[in-house]
């Protein structure tokens, strides 16, 4: 099923925001819609979007490649994106991420063995006064977690594990 068949209402809503002759503007919201399904944008979804907007597959792929919140391959179900930029680093973000990774037994950029959590070091998330902090990107969107400690984060990972098992 194509994206437009699967989400007719959402696609129509998105397209209605932009002038008909400039419908290419809808590429970013349509990519978010496509990413809902698998946590990344598949090749066939990119083709669907290209067709909807009368642009080439390559043009859609170039947008996916340019922005960091679009993904073209599967990673952990939850992407834990820790800010390690200067203001957060002045408040201990480097140590936080290092200790978190040791506890999870992975390196930055890697995914836990159960495929649940990928830890990424990312650029500023506009929460410099609440460091250490991270966001979790998943199929459901993006949620901020601020003023975090390693212990609190490990509890959160545990909770994510439990809820993943329940879903199974």
């Amino acid at each position, binding site marked *: 099923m194509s994206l437009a068949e699967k989400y007719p209402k959402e696609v129509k809503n998105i397209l209605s*925001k932009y002038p008909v002759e400039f419908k290419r503007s809808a590429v970013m919201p349509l990519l978010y819609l496509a990413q809902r399904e698998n946590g990344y944008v598949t090749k066939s979804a990119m083709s669907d979007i290209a067709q909807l907007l009368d642009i080439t597959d390559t043009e859609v792929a170039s947008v996916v490649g*340019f*922005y960091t919140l679009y993904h073209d391959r599967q990673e952990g179900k939850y992407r834990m994106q820790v800010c390690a*930029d200067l203001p957060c680093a*002045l*408040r201990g973000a480097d140590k936080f991420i290092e200790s978190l990774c040791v506890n999870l037994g992975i390196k930055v950029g890697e995914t836990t063995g159960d495929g649940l959590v990928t830890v990424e070091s990312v650029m500023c998330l506009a929460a410099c006064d609440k460091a250490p902090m991270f966001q979790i990107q998943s199929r459901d969107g*993006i949620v901020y977690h601020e003023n975090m400690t390693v212990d609190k984060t490990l509890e959160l990972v545990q909770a994510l594990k439990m809820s993943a098992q329940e879903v199974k």
Partner: protein
Amino acid sequence: MGHILLRHRDIPNFSQLDVYKKNGGLVAFKNAITAMKPEDVTNVVKASGLRGRGGAGFPTGTKWSFIDKNNWPHYVVVNADESEPGTFKDREIMEGNPFQMLEGVALCCYAVGANVAYIYLRGEFWQLAAALDENIAQLEEAGYLGDKLFGTEFSLRIHTHLGAGAYICGEESALLESLEGKRGQPRVRPPFPPSVGLYGKPTIVNNVETFANVQPILAKGADWYKTMGTADSAGVKIFSLSGSVKKPGNNELPLGTTFRDLIFNHGGGMLDNRRIKAIMPAGASSSMIIADDKALDTPMDYASVRTLGADLGSASIIVIDDTVSMEWVIGKTVHFFKHESCGKCTPCREGTYWMQNVINRLQNGRKKEDVDLLLNVAKQMQGKCLCALGEFATMAVTTGIERFPSDFKA
């Protein structure tokens, strides 16, 4: 005195429409579209002395008056891409006081003859965009957005648009490219957006905080607004304070407040009572200021900060203590800019890459020739990049090395 921009800190539930209206909200907008000429709105903003709060500090009313009246339709775009390391003020405004920002946008649309506005939010503000969609729907239902408002000929729609993680989209022409569905790479300017902007049409792009200032200015008048701040920099500003201080956070203060007052009074002083070493007043894009008594007693307005060899920018004050090495700081800032360089122009793409390489080498064993090389690369970038990002990437490097030479001694 209560807050002017962060009013939600004084009034509970201020993000709700009925509370906003009960406290004077939307009167200015209704009055403008029913009783004022569009150019009169622009003139009030001009007379207030309001300058853009996104970083460049360009006079807002003057920008609005540049809109090309021979080319239609017009657009208004809100820059809510807040991505500068050290900046977190727009997020608080939109979370706590969304209707004041939206009313400012609506006033601007009326002033420049735009019937559609887009709010371009960074992709990470996903929940915030959903909340704003809700706020916009409420305004439509209450008759403040839609067709032929209050029996006039003026119609207005506001839409949110989410970016997807790219600092460069805070640069206005890159933002417009992104909004048009392309990679966010800056355009050659001029022409500037008031002549050629979104979809090639005249467009006003302003920052969230700038729009939040417009409603109080229209409600209370330009003269009232000018009683705050300095002659050169009127009004209040939100200072995002971060780094080695006890109480990081947003502080709404008159422009012209001193660094000392912000850091030691509002910020509660230095973390663990360490000594203050340096200040970056405009986030990671900033020049490094040596935090001596002269600097600490300097008023934070656009002209005074310039006397310290820096810019106030978006007023994102990062405080650095004396346990921190400047070599480490520029390692962080260069890493950021290398990641965020869009790759369009060569000096920035290659320059940030080489600065990163040389810094990595420095951190594995400092040599004088590498410090000289780093400075050389940074200076070769200056004045040669397509947009400000390349320039920003060099500021901490050159001023870090020149103003804190002992941190780079081989």
